[in-house]
C-alpha cells in the first residue's frame, strides 16, 4: 500500500493506493469517491474497510481526497463541485497509470456519488461499473454545510447553484440514465426508494448503518452488509 500526493503542482491531491491481493485474469480497479466535511471523517473507516475487501478479491483500489478536503492541499473554502469532478478525472488517470487498468469502476458515497455520476456521464467508455451509494438530493447539495448551520462552516458559497445541483442530484438521476454506464447501481441504506424514484436505473435497498453519520450508540460501526453487496456486485 502507498500513501502519496498526486496531481498538478497547483492542485496536489492525497491518495491511498492498495494493490490487488488476489490474482485475477485481468486488471480490475476501483476508485472510491468520498463524501466531504464531517461525513468524510465519519465514513473514513467504512471506506477503508471497503477498500480492504475489494483488494482481497482482486481489485486495485485508490481512495483520495478532493482538493481542499481531507489531506489534500487547498483550503476548505477553495473546493467546488466542478473542480472536484476534475479531481476524480485526475484520480482515474492516476489509478490507471499505477494499476495498468484500461478502465476503472467508480464507487461514490453521498456527494461522492453525485460527483461520480457526473464524471461517468462524461467518460462513459472509461467507466466499467458505477455505484452510487446514497446520492444527495438537490436540497442537500444546495445546503452550504451538510449537517452544519451555514454560519458555522467555511464552505465555498460558489457551491450553491452549481450545475451539478440541477443535473446529478438524486431526483435528477433517472433523466440522466442514458448517459450513465449500463452497469450502474444506486444503493440506498437509510430507507427504501419509492417504486418510480429512479426510473430505469437499477436500485437496491440494504437496511444498514449510515456510515457517514456519527451516532453515539453506533459510532464507528461498519455497514458490513452494504460493503459485501458492493464487492459482490463489482465482481
Amino acid at each position, binding site marked *: 500500500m502507498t500513501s502519496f500526493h498526486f496531481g498538478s503542482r497547483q492542485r496536489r491531491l492525497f491518495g491511498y493506493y492498495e494493490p490487488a491481493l488476489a490474482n485475477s485474469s485481468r486488471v480490475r480497479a476501483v476508485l472510491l469517491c468520498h463524501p466531504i466535511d464531517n461525513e468524510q*471523517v465519519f465514513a473514513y473507516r467504512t471506506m477503508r474497510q471497503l477498500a480492504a475487501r475489494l483488494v482481497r478479491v482482486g481489485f486495485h483500489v485508490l481512495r483520495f481526497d478532493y482538493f481542499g478536503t481531507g489531506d489534500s492541499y487547498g483550503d476548505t473554502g477553495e473546493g467546488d463541485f466542478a473542480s472536484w469532478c476534475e479531481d476524480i478525472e485526475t484520480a482515474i488517470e492516476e489509478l490507471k497509470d499505477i494499476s495498468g487498468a484500461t478502465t476503472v469502476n467508480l464507487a461514490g458515497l453521498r456527494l461522492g456519488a453525485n460527483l461520480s455520476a457526473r464524471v461517468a456521464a462524461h467518460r462513459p467508455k472509461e467507466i466499467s461499473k458505477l455505484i452510487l451509494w446514497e446520492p444527495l438530493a438537490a436540497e442537500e447539495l444546495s445546503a452550504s454545510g451538510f449537517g452544519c448551520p451555514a454560519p458555522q462552516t467555511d464552505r465555498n458559497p460558489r457551491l450553491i447553484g452549481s450545475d451539478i445541483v440541477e443535473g446529478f442530484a438524486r431526483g435528477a438521476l433517472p433523466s440522466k440514465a442514458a448517459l450513465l454506464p449500463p452497469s450502474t447501481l444506486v444503493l440506498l441504506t437509510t430507507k427504501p426508494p419509492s417504486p418510480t424514484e429512479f426510473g430505469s436505473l437499477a436500485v437496491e435497498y440494504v437496511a444498514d448503518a449510515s456510515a457517514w453519520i456519527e451516532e453515539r450508540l453506533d459510532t464507528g460501526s461498519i455497514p458490513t452488509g452494504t460493503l459485501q453487496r458492493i464487492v459482490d456486485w463489482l465482481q
Partner: protein
Amino acid sequence: MTVGFSELAVHFGRSASLVGILTRPSSELPIRRPAVVILNTGIAHRTGHHRMYVKMARALASLGHLVFRFDFSGIGDSVSRGDDLNPIEAHQADLAEALDWLATSCDVNEAVLIGLCAGAEIALRYGHSDKRVAGLVLLDPTIPPTARFYAHYIGGRITQLRSWWSFVSGRGRIFEELSERARMAFGAAAPQPVSAADHRIRNELEQLYLKSLDRNLKVLIVLTGGPLDGRQSYREQLFDAFPNVPLRDRVSLEYFREADHTFTSERERARLQELVLGWITAFPTSRDPSPISGSDAERKAFGERPGRDGASL
C-alpha cells in the same frame, strides 16, 4: 502554488504500519522549535473534525514548526499492531514510534503534543514519560464532576420536561448520581458504587498531572462550555476537581464558553487556532535555539525520496 509549507505522507513505526502526514515549513523558512505532534480525536482520522488539524498544522508550519499528524494503530489508515498490547498500551507505543521517527528522520528532540478528548488523555498519559515531550495542549480533557458542576447541570436540565420525567421515573444520570450520593451520605451500603470508577479516574488523572508538572511540562488546557452534555460546566472545574495539584499556578487555562466539543463553529476554531499558535510560538525552548534550515532538515530527514511523492509499504 504559493504556500508556506509542504506535506509528505509517511509510513513509519515498527513494521511501517502507521501512517502520518508531516507538514514542513517551506524551504526558505528557518525551522523553529518545538515540533508539534497532533493526535487522533477518538476514532476520527488524522484530519480532525471539520479538518481542524489540517488547517492548524499548515498554519504552524507556515510559522516554521514541523508538524506531524498521524493515525494510531487501527484508526484511519494505520494498521492494527497485531500484538497483545491493550488499547492504552498500544497508543503509548504508537506515540513513542512517532517521536522516534521524528527524531531519526527530522532531528526533532523537542515536541508539543496536541490532543482533543481521548487524544488529550493519551497526551497526558504519555507526556511525562518521554524527555522529548516539552509541552501538552489538552483540548477538553476529562475532568471529573464537582459539586458546582452538579449544581450547574441540574440547573440547566431542570426546565426540561424530559429530564423531569426521567428523574421522576428513576432514570437518567442525575437521578443515579444523586441516589448514589444520598446512599453514601446516609451510610447505606452501595453494592456497586457508581462513584468507585469516578474515584479511580480522578486519582489516576491527578497522578498524571502531578507527574507532568514534576517534569516541568508546559501545559495549555482549553475547555469548551457548549451545550450541556455531562462534561465540565465552568472554567474553574479543573482546579476544583484536582485540589491537590497546583494547576492554578502552573498551567494555562482557557475556557471557550460558546464552543462545542468538536469546535463546530468556524469562529471558535479560528479562536482556538490563534490561541494555540500564539502559545507554541512563545514556547520557551530549553535547548540550543540556533535554527536549522528547512533544506538541511529535509536532506537529513528523507535522503533519497521514493519515486512517488510518498512512501511505500
